[in-house]
């Protein structure tokens, strides 16, 4: 029995946190989030050199060959600093390739992903926001030798910067996963403005896009289980970033409560301030436990994954949403300013909530899994 981290995982966390404090500081986050690209290429290269980008890429393809618990540790640390980067997208796409890809697909894509030369993402959801196979309506027609994709994938992370998309689409056999490149004819993928300027998300439009046999990642209906696992992995990854962000804004607020004086004392002496901060601590620690366990399930207990991932994402979504709002309120007017950091975290909490399913979606799924 050991629900803790290895020395290597502690080192990974420390390394990522140093990076966030240095070249990924909040001043830098603000600057980068205003650029069109939305991430800093020099920092992205550094992330790749440190092995973070290829964390899930097998060693034979130039990656670190690590697992989801390591990803959780990494994303919790980068989430603390709201580090703007396509890291989460790349990790999900590389996991799909590593778990489902043929030897040839892996050899073609994974080394470039690990080196940070190519940004990859997953395009799973559509406009009706149904989180699961029912929401997949991009059509696949044509023959097995040359399939044709038509339709629109919505809410695609890093759509504007990705060169490779893992796309969920449907034919009469069910859901499959396909590899689509940005420079293929009929592909259009802009990113759009978001409430959270540190993130990028957009739409992938597919008009008569031709898919060779070599670009089929998961044949239908095998794609359905693969889609479910990717959605769970995405939920856990977003939750990991969110836990780090929630903890960072909580620490910021605790520090403020220790130094801000009113009525002659530090405001942290008042129970009206102290108790919400204690409640946040309870929620963050519990969110961590649920999130780490879900990450472990991704690595080691696939049968437990749906329940664990839903619990983690549902709990984290609600907790972070509340923490984001309470952090602003506990600061008072300063928390409402653009200049102060608390607002950046509030915006992240809004972005996090619906990603890969909100609390309503996951609690309903849990009710079904629990026999209701």
């Amino acid at each position, binding site marked *: 029995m050991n629900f803790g*981290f290895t020395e290597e995982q502690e080192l990974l966390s420390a390394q990522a946190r140093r990076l966030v404090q240095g070249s990924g500081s909040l001043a830098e986050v603000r600057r980068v989030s205003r650029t069109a690209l939305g991430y800093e290429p020099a920092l992205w290269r550094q992330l790749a050199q440190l092995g973070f980008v290829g964390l899930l890429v097998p060693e034979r393809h130039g990656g670190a060959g690590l697992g989801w618990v390591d990803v959780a540790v990494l994303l919790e640390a980068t989430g603390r600093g709201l580090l703007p980067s396509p890291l989460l997208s790349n990790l999900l796409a590389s996991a799909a390739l590593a778990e489902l890809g043929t030897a040839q697909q892996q050899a073609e894509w994974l080394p470039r992903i690990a080196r940070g030369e190519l940004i990859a993402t997953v395009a799973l959801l559509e406009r009706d926001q149904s989180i699961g196979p029912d929401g997949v309506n991009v059509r696949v027609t044509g023959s097995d030798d040359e399939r044709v994709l038509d339709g629109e994938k919505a809410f695609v992370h890093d759509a504007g910067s990705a060169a490779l998309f893992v796309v969920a689409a449907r034919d009469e056999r069910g859901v499959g996963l396909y590899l689509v490149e940005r420079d293929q004819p009929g592909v259009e993928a802009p990113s759009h403005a978001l409430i959270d300027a540190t993130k990028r998300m957009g739409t992938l439009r597919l008009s008569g896009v031709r898919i060779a046999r070599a670009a089929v990642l998961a044949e239908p209906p095998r794609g359905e289980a693969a889609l479910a696992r990717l959605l769970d992995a995405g939920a856990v990854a977003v939750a990991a970033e969110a836990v780090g962000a929630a903890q960072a804004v909580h620490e910021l607020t605790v520090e403020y409560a220790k130094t801000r004086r009113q009525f002659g004392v530090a405001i*942290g002496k008042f129970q009206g301030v*102290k108790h919400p901060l204690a409640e946040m601590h*309870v929620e963050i620690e*519990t*969110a961590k436990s649920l999130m780490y366990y879900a990450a472990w399930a991704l690595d080691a207990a696939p049968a437990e994954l749906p329940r664990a991932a839903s619990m983690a994402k549902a709990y984290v979504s609600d907790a972070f949403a509340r923490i984001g709002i309470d952090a602003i309120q506990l600061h008072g007017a300063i928390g409402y300013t653009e200049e102060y950091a608390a607002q950046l975290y509030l915006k992240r909490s809004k972005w996090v909530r619906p990603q890969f399913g909100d609390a309503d979606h996951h609690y309903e799924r*849990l*009710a079904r899994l*629990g*026999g209701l």
Partner: protein
Amino acid sequence: MDFDLGPEELAFRDEVRAFLDENLPVQDLRAWQRKVREKRWVGFAWPREVGGGGGTIMQQVILKEEMAQRKAPPLGTCFMGLAWVGPALIEHGSEAQKQRFIPDILDSKYQWCTGYSEPETGSDLASLQCRAVRDGDHYVVDGQKIWTSLAPIAEWMILLVRTAPAAELGKHSGITCLLVHMKSPGIEVRPITNMSGGQLFAEVFFTQVRVPVDQRLGEEGQGWEVTVGALANERSSIAEVTALVRRLEELQELAKRSRKHGLPAAHDPRVRRTLARMATQIEGMRLNGLRFLTKQLKGEPLSSETSINKLHRAELEVAMGDFALELEGLASGYVGSGPEAIEQGKWQRTALSWPETVIGGGTPNIQKNIIAERILGLPKD
């Protein structure tokens, strides 16, 4: 990360399971208590020299968990003795005190009660006023205690008294711990009826009660360390989680049987979300417990982490009983063994008995103070 048990732990779990297979359901409670006593599972965490089991942390967790899974009866009925008095005796008691009291606690011979709270002293325990004055080889106690659980049936009390004024050294000094026989002349117990009709707690009055000095636990003025030391003796409580899981299963069954808007209540989105949220919170408690347990296994002391799960538990204790009554709808008004009462009013009892755990173990607001001050480092009130 690794959630498996090692070979020795598995062997111990199998031993516990085999024992439970053989002895459950329990027909004769006394015989059950003798048997678990022979296994040395009563006071399992205590050292073997005092008659305990010397169980490792993992063995303690396994034993509690397996027992909770199977809804086994408690290992002993001397609840306060096993929870508070025994650990304090082991830590601070003289040889003679250990020999006099520990075997009786392990054998559940009689009940202990804890004389801590006073009319003016609840959450602010250190402000207590009940006074003891040294007179030769006795202390003479005058004052009052209140909310003393089990006082009407207890034979002994672990009592906190003030032997020096709080003024000079701070209010935590000058407190002394005495072990007092409840039949001592000058003690009067007046039971208090609680809102569910029980009379398990009481006011206790002391008038010139003489307590021999050899019934002092620890040194004079050291009473705070003796009792707060016992409070710190808490373990991450996996077994409590198992009990909550069992209760949630029952609540879910109730949801399936109940009706709402002319449909099974289990179809209602809010009912579904509430039950799933409770399951998530309970799982969060289990995993928190395992994280804290990992810290303990690595030899790191637990500080105030247990307050986190206490707050979750308090919330769930209140919410689960209350939600059950919501599910029962109009039928929730019926109590007792009448024809309309559901499950003999089981959930009505739950909905009215949560203060025992929620307030008794330190109120949620106090737990929040502990987290804010000891973990987050916010200024003290």
